[in-house]
């Protein structure tokens, strides 16, 4: 069972945020049609990481846009625009991430789209909202991370701002976009009316920090202070962090220092009897722990601490993780066969419905691959 069977989504979005939402909707059963300009297609086709391309588009594009169709249309050409408008009349959802003003100029802004199809869910992604001094700024992941304060949460105290090393703002925003779209679809089932859903990278990445920003708003506005070494969360007490061992690294989450001190037979740790000092004396405590933990192998500590219920773990790289039984049992992988015979080995949707994993083997489309069939199907 795919819960969104029968839902049709037109995706005008490019790059990461919007298309990552489209991918979730597709994996949940929706039919997602990318509307791409002829020739060059979606901008994300040319954005590569490690300069990797397959079948003419970047590997990243293939990762984000699998399980979708492509309809090529030049929105500046009146005939193409008419056809797209016909499609909009048939669609349940459309998404776009053009900068404020662009859809108005094309004539596909919310009011126009609503006039075509009052049941349509119209979903828009922006960088910083539609008004204000930042509205015209590029809505790019790293820039939003850096403007939102996020870069001061990771890394150690003496490190400069340390961004999250993935397109976190894009991914979080895409997931909020999916929330808004799905909630609006549900509302439509009760009211018969469509609606407008708007998210922005900045609002989403502020929401992502809601716990710590709420703390900041209520603690006399103290800025986050990262631990001196092994920081894993600026607001959490020792022992929370990563530690070097004799042969690698280990992670130690929240736990009682009294208990840990007893297990490690460290009087220095057991001296911290007042819980408040676990935060105030964090650097000192973490130094003591460093001194102890570096003397033996990771496995020794995991055995010793883990057996007593202390929250510890190894620190894996991809090679170790992806070769581990705990990974293979998830059946997280899937392989997509491309038109040119190449294969893309990627991951599946993380959501399980009625105990079923949601696989989808269909690869990302070539530009306009489905233009003709869609035109025939909808009499465009």
């Amino acid at each position, binding site marked *: 069972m795919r819960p969104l069977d029968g839902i049709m989504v037109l995706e005008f979005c490019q790059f990461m945020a919007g298309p990552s939402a489209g991918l979730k909707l597709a994996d949940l059963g929706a039919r997602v049609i990318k509307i791409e300009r002829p020739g060059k297609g979606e901008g994300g086709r040319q954005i590569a990481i490690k300069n990797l391309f397959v079948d003419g588009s970047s590997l990243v594009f293939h990762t984000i846009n699998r399980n979708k169709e492509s309809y090529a249309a030049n929105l500046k050409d009146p005939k193409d625009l008419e056809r797209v408008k016909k499609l909009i009349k048939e669609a349940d959802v459309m998404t776009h991430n053009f900068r404020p003003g662009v859809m108005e100029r094309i004539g596909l802004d919310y009011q126009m789209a609503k006039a075509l199809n009052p049941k349509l869910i119209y979903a828009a992604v922006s960088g910083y909202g539609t008004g204000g001094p930042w509205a015209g700024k590029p809505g790019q992941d790293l820039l939003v991370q850096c403007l939102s304060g996020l870069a001061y949460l990771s890394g150690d105290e003496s490190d400069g701002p340390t961004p999250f090393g993935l397109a976190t703002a894009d991914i979080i925003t895409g997931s909020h976009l999916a929330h808004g779209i799905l909630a609006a679809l549900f509302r439509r089932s009760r009211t018969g009316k469509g609606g407008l859903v*708007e998210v922005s990278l900045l609002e989403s990445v502020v929401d992502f920090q809601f716990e710590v920003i709420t703390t900041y708003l209520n603690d006399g506005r103290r800025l986050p202070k990262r631990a001196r070494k092994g920081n894993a969360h600026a*607001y959490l007490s020792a022992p929370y962090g990563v530690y070097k061992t004799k042969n690698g690294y280990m992670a130690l989450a929240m736990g009682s220092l009294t208990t840990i001190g007893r297990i490690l037979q460290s009087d220095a740790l057991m001296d911290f009897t007042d819980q408040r000092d676990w935060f105030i004396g964090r650097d000192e405590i973490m130094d003591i722990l460093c001194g102890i933990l570096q003397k033996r192998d990771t496995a020794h500590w995991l055995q010793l601490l883990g057996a007593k219920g202390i929250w510890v773990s190894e620190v894996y790289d991809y090679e170790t993780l992806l070769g581990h039984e705990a990974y293979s049992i998830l059946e997280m992988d899937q392989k997509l066969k491309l038109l040119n015979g190449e294969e893309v080995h990627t991951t599946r949707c993380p959501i399980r419905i009625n105990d079923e994993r949601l696989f989808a083997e269909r690869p990302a489309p070539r530009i306009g691959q489905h233009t003709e069939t869609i035109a025939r199907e909808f009499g465009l």
Partner: protein
Amino acid sequence: MKPLEDILVIDLSQFLSAPSATLRLADMGARVIKVERPETGDICRQLYVSNVILNGESSVFRAINRNKESFEADLKDSSDKQRVLRLIQKADILVHNFRPGAIERLGLDYALIQKVNPGIIYAHISGYGEEGPWKSKPGQDLLLQSLSGLSWLSGNGGKGPVPMGLAIADILSGSHLVQGILAALVYKSKTNKGAKVSISMLESILDFQFETITTFYHDGGKPVQRSQNSNAHAYLGAPYGVYATENGHLALAMGAIPVLGELLDCEALKAYIDPEGWFAQRDEIKQVLADHLKKGTTEKWLSILEPADFWCSDVLDWHRLLDHEGFKILRMIQRVTMGDGFSYETTRCPIRLDGEILTSPLGSPALGEHTQAIAEELIPD
């Protein structure tokens, strides 16, 4: 009308993962009843961060659980459990994040709940799925980050693992739970059938890395390499990163190196004409940039790069962000009030609907604050 009006959620979960999901549902209009054990309640109530205590409990709890009600019940006590089952009978959605096995022991697994309420959407989060060698491991965020390979993506090369400094596995699994729940609601509106939605923090944090894991598979399993300095994404070339300036920092996203050389008047950069080299030689290029950018202020560099449409920005802390007009105009901060009159500031739901922001004045509940009122209203004797 908020989209989830009249939807009743019974929430047995604690900490952050699933409670962050029910916060989203609440903000979109659902009524969320937290079922909490007597005396301690959700353990998050005592999970203090930086020793901050807000009206007697953790600021983090206050952030995650506003706009919810609290019903006190001991699920191991049979009469309390009967009351909760009667609540579940009336609910549209049941949420929990018990470890695998625990929910069966409580007699609240899907098979049993379906008998009480066949149309329910039964949604739960585990740490690592319900089978395999890690199924009983604690589903704790830092452990998930450490096991999933994530901690090798941030920070500079040469450093040890650098976790992302927020509970990202919790947040993403909560977010995926919301997606599954809402999709199931859409399905139910057409078919009148309920569904079970299962999320694990491990699958969610792997999904977050779908780009880099796919790349790892494609490039023959090469180890992740962070750049030696100014790393912001291990798989992207120069100039992508954050640089110190004379008076602060500057973030540079993707862009052509020779163009940057031209704009910044940095002769050495103009030599890097081959885009392939921007990845292969990024350590060297980033070092040149770092040395050059130190010589001017952030404002100076922005005044050159922004008009040329080069992707760049200042690096703000929260003081400067919250003071900025670009932030204020979003009206992202709201004040909420608890049942005892205590009020505090927090953020609002990030989604806008029909041009409106979604806010709610309700603060987090005291433990058991609504037990009696809920019982009288929903399960009268």
